Structures are given as structure tokens and as C-alpha cells.
């Protein structure tokens, strides 16, 4: 066992230690289990949903029908089964959340590494840009950008991802600043490795756990942003998401007739998904942040 540890690449050992610590966090494991449940729902939605949700054959009930044995969570304004819509909505929320966070983390990772590694003018310029993006108010800007680009899932991903990288860039940069002084970077440089090689083969693997943690935290923000944008009517009308469901519920007056079955469930699911990622992110933070480790 000890031998195995020594033979492992440093980043592999890091990942293993990371997982060991993560397993001990109750909050983190709760989040992971929640996430796995939602992933299962997203994958199996077409099989487990009792009614179709797209096209004319989705009108299976009476408009605003309250919950019953046939329709567990009632029907929407067109008589479509809400329980089936909730299951399908999982797909869009997770897809947008993951992809937007991935995009943001990728931009942040590249900018952080380049900025930290080269320093000087490049660093100054990139960090000034980061500072500017950081203070742009998120949702208001997303609303404008989404309105200009038009409603589609990919546009929503882009709109959320393009703003969300600043924190990651700063964090990765500060890590790279200390990493590039380490002997293994010196050794690689002495062996004649190019800058690109050092940045992506030697430094990048070492900041990956941090980038991964940032991505997980980013998903929770992205899911909330998607829900908000869709609720405001800027979502993709051809897909069902929880935010879109709440948009229609609000627009078609579900509140005026007290249709709680239309308003309450989508929000609970959004909260649950975001909670899953927030819990995991919090656990990651406790593991990776050296200040917390000292206290144990």
C-alpha cells in the first residue's frame, strides 16, 4: 500500500487523499447522493415519466387540474401532466448547470494559469479584465445578453458561462504563483521544456482539484441563473425546465387560483439540486482550504 502511494504521480495521490477526506464529510456525501439521484432521474426521464411532455399528445388532462391518482401533481394550463414535466425538467437544469460551469471553469483555468505563469504585463492586463468582469452585475447583464442573443439552450449556457470565471481565474492564479517557484518546474525548464509544456503538463494537473471544486460550486450558481432567466421568460421555449415551468405558472395565473401543485414542486427541485452542489462545494472548500485544515 505504502509502495503504491509512492509510485503514484503526485496529482493522483492528491486525488486519492481528496476522496478519502471527502468521504468523511457528511455534508459532502449528502450532496453527492442527492446529485446521483437527480442524475438517475435525468437519464431515465423518458422511461419513468408517465405521460409525454412534448407535442399535442402531451395534453392528457384538464387545464389546472389538481393532483389526483392519474396526475400525481396535477396539470398545467394546457392540461399537460406536471409530474412528467418535472422529471424531464431535470435534464435541462443539470445540462445547463454543468455545461455553463464547465465553460466558466475552463476560461478561469486558462486565464489563471497564463496570468500566474507569465506575470508582468500579461498578468496585469488579464487581472484588470478580471476585475472589470467581476463587478458587472450578473443577472442584469445576463438578461440583456440573453435578450440580444435570443432564446436557446446553448445561448443560455454561453450567457451564464461568460461571466462566471473570474473567481476561478483569481484562485488558480494565486496557486500558480506559488507552484511555478517549485523545484519540479525549475527542473522541467532546465530540461528545455517549453512554456506551454510546463503550463499544461506540469502546472495544470496540480491545480485541477481546485478547478474541479470551483466547477462544482459553479454549477449551483449556474442552475440558479438558468432558473432565474427562464422564469423571466428568457429561456428556451422549446424545452421544459423548472424555471420555464415557474414562468408559465406565473404568467398563466396559477397564483390567482391557488394552484400550489404548479408553483411549489419545481422550486423544491431547483433548491434540492442547488443544495446538492452547494453541500459538495462546501465540503471541497473545507478540504482544500489550508486554513481550515489547520484546525483539525
Amino acid at each position, binding site marked *: 500500500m505504502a509502495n503504491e502511494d509512492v509510485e503514484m504521480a503526485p496529482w493522483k495521490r492528491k486525488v486519492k487523499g481528496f476522496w478519502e477526506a471527502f468521504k468523511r464529510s457528511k455534508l459532502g456525501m449528502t450532496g453527492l447522493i442527492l446529485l446521483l439521484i437527480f442524475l438517475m432521474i435525468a437519464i431515465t426521464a423518458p422511461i419513468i415519466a408517465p405521460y409525454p411532455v412534448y407535442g399535442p399528445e402531451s395534453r392528457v388532462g384538464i387545464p389546472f387540474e389538481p393532483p389526483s391518482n392519474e396526475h400525481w401533481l396535477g396539470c398545467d394550463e394546457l392540461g399537460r401532466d406536471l409530474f412528467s414535466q418535472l422529471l424531464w425538467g431535470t435534464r435541462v437544469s443539470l445540462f445547463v448547470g454543468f455545461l455553463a460551469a464547465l465553460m466558466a471553469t475552463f476560461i478561469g483555468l486558462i486565464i489563471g494559469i497564463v496570468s500566474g505563469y507569465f506575470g508582468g504585463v500579461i498578468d496585469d492586463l488579464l487581472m484588470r479584465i478580471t476585475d472589470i468582469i467581476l463587478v*458587472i452585475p450578473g443577472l442584469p447583464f445576463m438578461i440583456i445578453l440573453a435578450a440580444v442573443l435570443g432564446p436557446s439552450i446553448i445561448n443560455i449556457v454561453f450567457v451564464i458561462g461568460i461571466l462566471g470565471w473570474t473567481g476561478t481565474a483569481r484562485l488558480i492564479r494565486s496557486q500558480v504563483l506559488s507552484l511555478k517557484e517549485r523545484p519540479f518546474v525549475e527542473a522541467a525548464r532546465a530540461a528545455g521544456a517549453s512554456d506551454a509544456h510546463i503550463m499544461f503538463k506540469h502546472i495544470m494537473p496540480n491545480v485541477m482539484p481546485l478547478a474541479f471544486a470551483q466547477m462544482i460550486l459553479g454549477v449551483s450558481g449556474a442552475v440558479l441563473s438558468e*432558473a432565474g432567466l427562464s422564469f423571466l421568460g428568457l429561456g428556451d421555449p422549446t424545452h421544459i425546465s423548472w424555471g420555464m415551468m415557474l414562468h408559465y*405558472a406565473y404568467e398563466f395565473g396559477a*397564483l390567482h387560483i391557488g394552484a400550489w401543485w404548479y*408553483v411549489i414542486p419545481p*422550486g423544491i427541485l431547483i*433548491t434540492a439540486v442547488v443544495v446538492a452542489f452547494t453541500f459538495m462545494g462546501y465540503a471541497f472548500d473545507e478540504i482544500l482550504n489550508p486554513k481550515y485544515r489547520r484546525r483539525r
Partner: protein
Amino acid sequence: MREYLIKRIIQGIVTVFVVVSINFFLFRAMPGNPFMRFIESQPRGKVKEMVDIYIKLFGLDKPLWEQYLIYMKNLLVGKFGYSFRQVGVPVSKIIMERLPNTLILMGTATTLTIIIGIALGVIAAGRRGELADISTVIIGLTLYSIPIFWLGLVFILVFGFWLGWFPLWGMLTPGKYFSNPFEYAVDYLWHMTMPCTVLVLVSAGGWALITRNALLDVFTEDYILTARAKGLDERTVFYKHALRNAMLPLVTMIALSFGFIASGAVLTETVFSWYGIGRLLYEGTMQHDYPVVQAAFFMIAVCVIAANIIADILYAYLDPRVKY
């Protein structure tokens, strides 16, 4: 200190300049011109002559760089142009009508949030590992995860529709006659209760967590050990040594949270039909009234940037270790 102040303000001006430029070019990057989008969204469809007149009126036939210069010049003197929808009404007038509502709602909500959040965080940090601490962490993380607009919908459903305690939306009871300013204020505050509560609930959790973590960070510092070794009682250590130092990261967090507050304002104001800048941004976007959208975004961005600068300066002032 003085140099830092000047540097920081210049930096802020540059940021505003960049944001304003993005604001300008974004709408011109749309296919067609912005006014065509507005016309196409109108029920009657396009009327050729009318479109031509309006394009001239709004200067949309001028070259882009000239439009940009006019736009910048007007912003400097506080002119935002005219609304597409409400013909002849200057946007600055609309903004001025809406701004007080946002400032009152967000000001009240933010103040309450910070007080409640910090108090909860202090309680949690003081009882690290106990039930009060663990429940603060879990409830804090969960509150942070609730979509604010949905909590608003639930409040409208429960406290407005079912219990009838609070009005479902708006800022004043329609058609009500107010005999004195006091009655007016009471009605206004009664309408504000729900949006304000929702805002506080969703953001206070995050504040409690940040305060707790900042305090726990400080507890690991050597000067806390020194203070305890000196024989100071826990109370003095906590309030005089720990809390005061933990306030520093909190100031930074206040600054960063203004972007979050702005997002919350748009959603909350929309849900509760609170006629502020956030709802204006939403309405303008939906109605393709781009001069209004630009102005609303400009106001929000300037507030957030200004708040950031103030927090940075405050930080430098509070922390004698910071030398610029």
C-alpha cells in the same frame, strides 16, 4: 492613502467606461437595428414611413461611431435619451421615478440582512461544533440555494392568497385615498414587507456562513493565542480581538455581494411588481424598449461599482497593515 484613493477612483471610472461601452455595442450588435426589433414586436407590425421617421428621430441612421460619441456625451450630462415605447418621455424621468423604490427596498433589505446574518454567524462561531453551529451551516447553505423568485411566489401563495395578510403585489393599495403622509408610508411598508422578508431570508444565510468562517479563520491566528495567554477572558478575546479582525474580510464580502443583491432586486421586484429599477430592466427587455434597458443597466452597474470602491477604501482605512 490619498494616492490609493485617487487610483481606485480612476480604476472605477475605467470600469464604468468599459461597462457603458459594452452596453452600447451589445444593442448595436443585434441583427437589424434596435428600433426594428421594437417595431416588429408591436401588434400592428411595421409601418414603413413611421419606421423611417423614428429612425431619424432617434439618430439610428448616423454612423456607429457618431452614435457612440453622442451616447457618451449625453451620459456625461445625465441624459439617457427617450423611451421607444412611451413616446416623448425622457428615460431619465422614468429612472428617477423608479430609483427611490429600489433604494428603499434594497437599502432596508440589505441592512437587515447584514445585521441578522452577522449576528447568526457570531452565535454559530461561538458554539463551534454544537447544534446551533451545525444547524446554522446547514440552514445557511439551504437558504442560499433557494431561488429567490420562487420563495417570492410561495410567499404570495401562502401569506397573500391563502392567509390574506399581505397584498399579492404592487406598492400601494389601488384607488386608496391617503389623508396624510403617515397613512401613505404605512401602506407602502405593508406592501414592502413580503419582498423585503424574501430578500433577507435568502441572503442572510450566506452572511451567517461568511461571518462564521471569517471568525473561525481569525481564531487560528497567533494573536488570539497571545490574548488568551495574557489571561484575557473569552468575552474580551471574542469581541475585542476576534470579531474586530474578522470584520475585514466581511467588508470585502459586502462589496462583492452587491452584484448578488442587484440580481435579487431584478427577480424580487419582478415577482412582487415592485416598480423599481430591477423591474424596469425586465419590462424594458420584454418590450424591446432598449433606451430604457440601457439606462436601467447603467444605473445598476454604477451602483455596484461605486459600492465596490467604497468598500475597498473602507478596507484600506480599517486595516492598518494595508499599505498602498
